């Protein structure tokens, strides 16, 4: 409701102030530069500047063999590196029409889902910290993430950028005793999810900061090509693991959590529920793990036939797509990485128009972007 402007107020000189958030800022999730035009506490307009982490990976790919590019895919979305590896390897395998041993498929599913849990833990922890719950949820989430990183350390020797999947399989087989560790982790994680829900999800202050804020309507989300948990929070039931199953996802039973309002709380809650569903998938995958040799011969130079392929997989942030054009040689002719956070971030200027400064941080945290894959 607008009050009529009085005569005295018309003579008061008020300015809108321009404020920069970032690129170095505690809560922009990387090097993101938001230029905000503020009227007091309210954001009137905003401009998004990206490109501070641009490492020209697509140009580099034209100069590397297909196997040599796998470590580069780790560094795209560095928080969930296994999913990037997976997307790239699946795209190259489709280009070459190559089949993967069944044990490798199961191991890939286990690795990808474990990494999905790790990525969502970071999303939840840093989101709660941006809201002001000074590091306590962050420490709890990282405590669980340490368990996952220890498991990955045993499997492939790395904690963050795994370089684990290969074209045609994986790098190493699972070591002995790892399934007991994963079972213990699943049990521990289930009890900790209850803890998160008790502490955070229904806390009055948390609800007041997140309910009805940053509402993303369904048709706007689809038009902006928003994907992943953000799209599912707006009411669209769409998950590539169910719609176009790749690897062995069609053998497992799991649900797709969908919310209907599309506000910040829904996006957060969907991530918590997805952790639970990933735990179910890992359990079933471990139970059904077949025998065999999932590794590939080292040192083979792949020369796919000339052609092109576009393959998308469901990464924790949305649909990660790889478009590869091959001219028959051992280097790709063109490699395009369609990053989910790139399209998710494009919604920000519309979402933060007319909200207060404190909500900008909240909305940005709920979209869960990683600058590594936006800038490539």
């Amino acid at each position, binding site marked *: 409701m607008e009050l009529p402007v009085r005569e005295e107020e018309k003579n008061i000189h008020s300015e809108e102030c321009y404020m920069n958030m970032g690129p170095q800022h505690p809560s922009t999730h990387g090097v993101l530069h938001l230029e905000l035009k503020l009227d007091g506490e309210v954001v009137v307009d905003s401009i998004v500047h990206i490109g501070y982490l*641009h490492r020209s990976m697509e140009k580099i790919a034209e100069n590397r063999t297909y196997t040599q590019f796998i470590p580069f895919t780790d560094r795209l979305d560095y928080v969930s590196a296994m999913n990037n590896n997976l997307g790239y390897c699946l795209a190259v395998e489709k280009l070459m029409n190559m089949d993967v041993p069944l044990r490798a498929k199961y191991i890939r599913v286990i690795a990808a889902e474990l990494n999905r849990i790790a990525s969502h833990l970071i999303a939840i922890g840093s989101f709660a910290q941006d809201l002001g719950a000074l590091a306590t949820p962050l420490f709890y989430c990282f405590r669980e993430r340490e368990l996952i990183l220890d498991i990955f350390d045993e499997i492939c020797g790395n904690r963050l950028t795994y370089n684990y999947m290969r074209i045609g399989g994986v790098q190493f087989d699972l070591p002995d005793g790892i399934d007991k560790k994963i079972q213990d982790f699943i049990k521990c994680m289930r009890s900790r999810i209850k803890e998160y829900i008790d502490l955070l999800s229904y806390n009055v202050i948390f609800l007041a900061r997140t309910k009805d804020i940053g509402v993303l309507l369904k048709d706007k989300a689809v038009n902006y*090509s928003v994907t992943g948990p953000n799209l599912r929070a707006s009411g669209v039931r769409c998950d590539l693991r169910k719609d176009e199953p790749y690897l062995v996802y069609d053998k497992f039973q799991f649900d797709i959590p969908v919310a209907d309002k599309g506000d910040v709380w829904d996006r957060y809650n969907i991530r918590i529920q997805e952790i639970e569903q990933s735990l179910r998938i890992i359990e079933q995958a471990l139970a059904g793990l077949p025998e065999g040799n999932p590794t590939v011969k080292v040192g083979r130079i792949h020369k796919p036939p000339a052609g092109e*392929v*576009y393959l998308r997989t469901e990464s924790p942030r949305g649909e990660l*797509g790889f*478009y590869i054009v091959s001219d028959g040689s051992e280097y790709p002719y063109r490699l395009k990485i369609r990053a989910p956070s790139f*399209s998710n971030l*494009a919604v920000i200027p519309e979402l933060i128009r007319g909200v207060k400064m404190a909500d900008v941080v909240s909305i940005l945290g709920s979209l869960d972007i990683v600058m590594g894959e936006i*800038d490539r």
Partner: protein
Amino acid sequence: MQPDKIFSLLKLKFSQATQEGSCGAVVIPRERLLDVAKYLISSELSFDNLHCITAVDRQERIELVYIFFSLQARHNLTVKVYLTPDDLKVESLASFWKSADWFEREIYDLFGVTFRNHPNLRRILNPEDWKDHPLRKNFSRSDFIKKERY
């Protein structure tokens, strides 16, 4: 809907459409791009999700690749537009699909293709005062070294 049926529907409406490549991409001339976009978004094909726009530099031509998905009908389509290297202008699709906004900015930044009627055509990944277009095949700088082929 099967890809052949989609292509035959498109061919009925736009006679210059051809099919190419292993991907089954539909090639349309650049002047008909807006009409095709209008048809794709509003007809029963209902391609409401423009998933990715990219470009490939094939030396003698630059191909613009548009990848569409439909959430309701669960089918997909790849549309290609060929541009000659001396005339890199094409209409922008940002008025139909908002996701095209940033993809087209990226192609302008990396390939030099100008999109007419784009709301905000500026460089997005490189700095604003960058001079050339990196992903072209004729890109050369003193510190860019092409590796030996095997």
